[in-house]
């Protein structure tokens, strides 16, 4: 079929669309290697958690800690990634479109990781609370702030889903910054409001801390879940980048007068 390109627009061969999403050779071996290493670390983490000595008062019940702690700690790390990626997006938006899109992809990936890790943190915390305190939930300072963190990032993902095509990234970036500004205010005000969750295990004063025999299990699990988080963020980032490139390519194709968008899908 004959097409008349809009004058001045370069009508490049269709294969260009697929060549830009081709993986670099480094990624080709690095990704699988990271996956294998992550599974090894998760395996060691599980072994260490299962073989660590029984805890004095809680017995085997405390072992959920090795799962609960890494998830909650890391769900406080991913929002920083989200915030910095959003700031980077706002800064790069008018300067370098490719990099801005990359920052936006990272922002989505890290927000989803935040919601995932916080959901697991909440779920394991509630299971532990039910077994240790006899209640599923308490409106204490830590639990409430944590729930608010979860709510903020769920609302961020909903906004992304609802907003119209071209502005999603910008609206999401502004909202991410509002959420980041809100978190310290939330944290302080809720601390004043309620103070049942134990004081922090690490850095919470003299009685805080864990027995030396439990340290390897904590470190392996934090490390392993960190690797897992980076892996899923990486995978989501790559998927999001491909989606962006595909959308750009489809738009270009449309501009060039192609009526074969169905073919591209």
């Amino acid at each position, binding site marked *: 079929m004959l097409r008349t390109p809009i004058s001045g627009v370069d009508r490049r061969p269709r294969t260009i669309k697929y060549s830009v999403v081709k993986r670099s050779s480094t990624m080709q071996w690095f990704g699988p290697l990271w996956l294998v290493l992550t599974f090894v670390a998760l395996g060691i983490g599980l072994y260490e958690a299962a073989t660590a000595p029984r805890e004095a008062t809680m017995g085997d019940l405390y072992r959920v800690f090795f799962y609960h702690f890494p998830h909650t700690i890391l769900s406080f790390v991913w929002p920083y990634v989200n915030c910095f990626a959003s700031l980077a997006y*706002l800064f790069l938006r008018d300067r370098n479109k490719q990099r801005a899109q990359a920052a936006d992809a990272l922002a989505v990936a890290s927000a989803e990781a935040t919601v995932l890790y916080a959901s697991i943190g909440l779920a394991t915390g509630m299971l532990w609370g039910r077994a240790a305190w006899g209640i599923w939930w308490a409106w204490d300072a830590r639990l409430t702030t944590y729930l*608010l963190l979860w*709510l*903020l990032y769920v*609302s961020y993902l*909903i*906004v992304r889903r*609802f*907003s*119209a095509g*071209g*502005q999603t990234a*910008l*609206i999401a970036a*502004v*909202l991410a*910054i*509002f*959420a980041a*500004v*809100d978190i310290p*205010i*939330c944290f*302080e*005000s*809720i601390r*004043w*409001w309620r103070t049942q969750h134990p004081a922090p295990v690490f850095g919470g004063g003299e009685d805080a801390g864990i027995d030396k025999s439990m340290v390897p299990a904590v470190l392996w699990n934090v490390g392993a879940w960190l690797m897992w988080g980076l892996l899923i963020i990486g995978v989501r980032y790559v998927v999001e980048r491909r989606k962006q490139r595909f959308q750009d390519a489809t738009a270009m194709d449309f501009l060039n007068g192609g009526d074969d968008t169905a073919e591209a899908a």
Partner: protein
Amino acid sequence: MLEMTYAHYVWTHLRKDLQLEWRARDSINGMLFFALLVVVVFAMAFDPGAYPATTRQISGGLLWVGLLFAAMTALNQSWAREQRNQVLEAQRLVPAPASTLFLGKALANFLFVTAVEVILAPVFVVFYNLHILGNAWLLLLILPLGTWALVINGTFFAALGLRSRNRELLLPLVLFPIAMPALLAMTQATTHVLTNEFPPNLWIKVLIAYDVVFTTACILFFETILHAE
């Protein structure tokens, strides 16, 4: 040409909104009746006459929840007229800073919600047989601070969601989580004034901090979201 200052621009936008509201009285009438309905619904749900001490404990929260829901109806509509008449496109062409449009709108919404409060607060006291044990005049500080906290972010997020699907649903979904510390502070401060069990000072400070932080953030980012696309 007469040089206009920032305040002039804000005043121009504010005056326009006030004039339109004066002629139509859509926002205030709608909010007022809605808030009154919420007061009655809460009275059905909690029976405020039977337990005066409990009523005093929960009235602060009920008042703010009612105001929050009522404000949502007006906030959702606050940009609809501008969008219909291409005001947002016009704003991009004029040399006035975009944040003046925002501040004018936020101030207008603030005055509308305040007008509702002026009528609703006495109704609340009468209907719920409230006997305020603390310094009632402190409410004159808490109500405007709390209202500004709701209205500033509400006006901003209403603009943020203008071009999205499910616009009406989106506003509370975004506003409630962000406004949670402010809601906590305004309900706690009001309850402390009503019960006189604790001084409300800390919560007033939280409200002031929230207002300052988010007013700054909204003014900084409004131009960005206005020029979205």
